């Protein structure tokens, strides 16, 4: 009960509210040694201190009153806020594709959470339609909340649940699937679903936003429109990530779930296809393919759902001077698969060799990926590489480290046989290893040089 009336307040502040019988959402006149303050008492974020009471003053601003300065308080009224995205029934339009939106949390649509002071997701077709009415021109939408977790809390259980849900929707005859997802681990989920949902007949599009939809400049609405269009109208039947191309509100990119990576902590255009080009460019009018070959949309329902995952796989990010016991510790704790993220062409120092040998002897599956992200593991170039292969480390071509972790986890969820594991790891399911790196695959521009500056000036960022 206390929680309801005094939302988030604790310690001194809570005592004071109780003493003067002032509730959260009560309008209050507070006498303090710094003068009189008037306004509506707001809930307080749990992590903030117990020395202040938050008040919304008449001009709409929030202020904090120091409890130590308060000499008296009086509640003069009560006005509880009703925060609700206007809900309108999502209209059905004959002839538009049927798209299913799975909610997993994330910031596609969100509202304020007073408990943490952060934003929490809000989600229903009605709410989405209220916030982004343009969606009704793109598709007929159904939504289903599968979980409400933040991106960093998405994990194996969620991957498997999603894969099964996708299978069921395809069985029901949906034209495309969109998954709303926090952006931090969007690419992990992209890889997991690529392996778990094979031979897809319809697009499965993962989408998020880098700026929560509670701000006017959010990328959420446009990302959502692009994702719905890709799911409902594109003929690319793959697991894709759909996010901003440039940081401008201009177009989105469709990335393969196995080649995409979040590359900036806060930019809107954070997702990039690594070592290849994206599948397509998308705006509100068109979907413009970039890659010539991809899996095409089909009318059958012959999807293969393979929801397997072992939680005994880990990653080891190598650094110079790494001691062998770091690897031993992982093996001792029972890890069966280790993705090593090596330097350069795929290297670790010699001190690790004995540990590698011990791990190999215990049957641990070890695969080499790259800190450089771009390029291929080449373990034949230097002796160290050859040594390591001899000791049981298998190079994974140009598979991204996170993708290799997902794939090995998925494989070890099915088999433990080293040869079978190796065969599966190195057999590409959907371009997680490509045989060729195009000249425009590697792109990290260097600011400051004239041609890049010209490009940045001429083309909207």
């Amino acid at each position: 009960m206390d929680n309801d009336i005094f939302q988030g307040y604790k310690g001194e502040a809570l005592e004071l509210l109780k003493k003067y019988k002032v509730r959260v959402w009560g309008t209050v006149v507070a006498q303090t040694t710094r003068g009189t303050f008037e306004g509506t008492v707001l809930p307080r974020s749990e992590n903030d201190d117990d020395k202040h009471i938050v008040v919304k003053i008449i001009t709409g601003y929030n202020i904090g009153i120091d409890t130590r300065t308060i000499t008296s308080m009086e509640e003069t009224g009560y006005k509880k806020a009703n925060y609700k995205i206007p809900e309108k029934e999502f209209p059905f339009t004959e002839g538009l594709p049927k798209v299913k939106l799975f909610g997993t949390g994330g910031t596609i649509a969100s509202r304020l959470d007073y408990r943490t002071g952060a934003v929490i997701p809000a989600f229903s077709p009605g709410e989405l339609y209220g916030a982004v009415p343009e969606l009704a021109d793109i598709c007929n939408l159904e939504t289903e909340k599968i979980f409400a977790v933040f991106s960093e809390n998405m994990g194996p259980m969620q991957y498997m649940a999603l894969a099964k849900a996708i299978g069921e929707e395809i069985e029901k005859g949906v034209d495309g699937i969109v998954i709303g997802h926090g952006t931090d681990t969007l690419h992990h989920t992209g890889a997991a679903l690529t392996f778990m949902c094979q031979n897809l007949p319809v697009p499965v599009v993962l989408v998020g936003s880098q700026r929560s939809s509670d701000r006017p400049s959010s990328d959420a609405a446009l990302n959502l429109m692009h994702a719905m269009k890709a799911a409902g109208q594109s003929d690319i039947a793959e697991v894709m990530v759909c996010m901003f191309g440039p940081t401008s509100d201009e177009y989105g990119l469709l990335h393969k779930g196995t080649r995409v990576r979040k590359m900036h902590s806060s930019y809107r255009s954070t997702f990039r296809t690594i070592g290849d080009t994206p599948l397509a460019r998308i705006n509100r009018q068109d979907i413009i393919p970039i890659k010539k070959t991809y899996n095409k949309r089909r009318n059958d329902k012959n999807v293969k759902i393979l929801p397997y995952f072992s939680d005994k796989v880990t990653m080891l990010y190598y650094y110079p001077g790494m001691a062998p016991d770091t690897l031993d510790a992982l093996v001792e704790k029972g890890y069966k698969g280790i993705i090593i993220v090596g330097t350069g062409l795929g290297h670790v120092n010699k001190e690790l060799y004995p540990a590698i040998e011990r791990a190999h002897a215990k049957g641990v599956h070890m695969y080499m990926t790259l800190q450089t992200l771009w390029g291929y593991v080449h373990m034949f170039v230097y002796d160290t590489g050859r040594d390591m292969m001899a000791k049981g480390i298998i190079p994974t071509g140009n598979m991204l480290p996170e993708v290799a972790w997902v794939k090995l986890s998925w494989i070890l969820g099915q088999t433990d046989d080293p040869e079978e594991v190796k065969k599966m790891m190195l057999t590409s399911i959907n371009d997680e290893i490509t045989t060729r790196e195009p000249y425009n695959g590697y792109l990290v521009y260097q600011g400051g040089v004239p041609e890049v500056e010209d490009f940045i000036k001429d083309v909207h960022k």
Partner: protein
Amino acid sequence: MSFDSRSNYSNSKKKVGYVPRNEATQETYDSLGFMSGLEVHQQLLTNEKLFCHCPAGIFHQHDDYDAELIRHMRPTLSELGEYDGTALMEFRTKKEIVYRINNENACTYEVDDTPPFPINMDALEKALEISLLSKLNIVGEVHITRKQYLDGSIPTGFQRTAILGVEGELELPNKKIRLIQLSIEEDSCREISDIGHTRVYKTDRLGMPLIETVTYPDFVNPDEVKEGCDYIRFLNRSTDKVRTGMGAGRQDVNVSCRGGSRVEIKGVAHTKWIPELTHNEVFRQWSLLQIKDMLLESIDQPKDWKVNHISIKDLMGSNPQLLEKEEIIAINLPKFEGALSYFTQPNQMFADEISTRLKVIACIEKPNMTHSEDFRTLINEAQWDDIKELLGAKEGDSQVIVWGDMSDMKTAIETVEERCQMALEGVPVETRKSFEDGTTIFERVLPGADRMYPDTDSAPIPLEDSYITELSKGLPTDVIDNYKQLKEWGVSDEVYTYIFSKNLFPLIQKIIADIGVKPSYVCTFLGHEVKFAEGHYKGPEKFNHEKVYDLFRYLKDSGITFEIAEKMLPELIEHPKMDFESILTSINFRKYTKEEILSKLPLLYDKFADGKKEVSKVKMKNWVMGKLRNIAIGNIELSELSKDI
């Protein structure tokens, strides 16, 4: 007989009682119920911006940029779950916002690709000092709030802002003005252009620390508003911690008349424009109330009042002035005769209110309409008759014709209808853009408290008592106390503005205390002679007033009287690096003792009296003073010399 709109305009102007400002008295304003308050913005003098580490105060030309990016703004809910009116209006305008970025003064924060860094504590401290000077109740904890701006002036779509104090007071010479609050906020972008559906901004000013002082609507006439605004700016300047120069201080002026609404005149750059703007605004509102009364005489059900429209592209498409227009729409306004040509401001009528809204909301560039009471005759009478017939117009109706792109017409028709419906209710709350001639035009719908949202990216900042106490110790004296001191010294009113706006009071005190110059002399010297010389002589840099201290110190130490200072000023301004001795040489100053000067008297007396029968003593004295003046200045005080002649 068609409606005589010209005489309607002049008759309505009389009915409103509009008089030029120099003919208006307090009675005029009292009869209109003049009410006004201020929101005074002042940039703080800091090295860096408020929420990132970009340098503050580095500006660029419009076309000097390294990159451009584009955003569209969507309205979002406020903390209390409401959509804001402005937000919805801006969304309807469907603007594409282009930002120009220069690497020197903008980073990924400005364009909302990086969350805010912790607030600039230097800026916060300066703003708190001004809050204390403004006698505000200082908050216990600063909460960064997001204030929505969908016009694109801030790429995030909101301004990060925080209240530092509430309920303060400002003492003017003749009354006290109550202050609502003072906030610290990030400055917005500067607009480069706004044409059709594209608005272009540059991001150099964006994010610079700014404070906003908000007063209650306590001002009762236009001159008082200016006076109050000047005092707030003087107070800010008195800390020496604010920026000066073009655009560093700007104000929004809120005005209403009795029965009217709060209208905000935005971004007034000079306080001298305030009187004319507020004068005209109060009359504009008075006009709108009369229009409402007039319309309601014939319109019984204002809630049901609607327009009807038709396309007249086929009819009017061959008109040479409308040839290029994709669509032309005629709109009938039932029972609106006399409203469109009703006087609102000098050289503006009610129809102009509609036209400007069409430009802002429907994004149709002017000229975007004509109407049945237009002085210009774009459409001849026979065509009007056809149009009225097609619209099914009745006697007493009036018509508006709008044109533009097909895709803008829906919003255009809504905009016309909406503005006319508002006329039935009185004065719409809105923000208006000002012009130097004292008139204003519609800018945006006035946003309300519904556009506020806590900034989930920033933690609250506690302000401990000990910190506030420490800050209070270093505050300058109140402007009003300085004002009273000047009065006491007998300093003439006309130099006050210069002294306060340049924050010269501390310098004056120092000169008086250290050198012993007479107070009224220093004040007049700075507020009159220096001001004059600055306006007439050009130096390589802005004149540094501290030089005046050195100058008086030098004269005192050299035993030269202060009167020479005035003669030295032009050289001092033009050649600030020249030493005082060289300046004296270059103005041909020579040292004489009093005796040497007085020794010339007998010769001069003789010369004046030469051949005259009668000699007027006064005339002679003046003549002799004139002859000796040049050599006396600096050597002997003229008043002293005068006694000896």
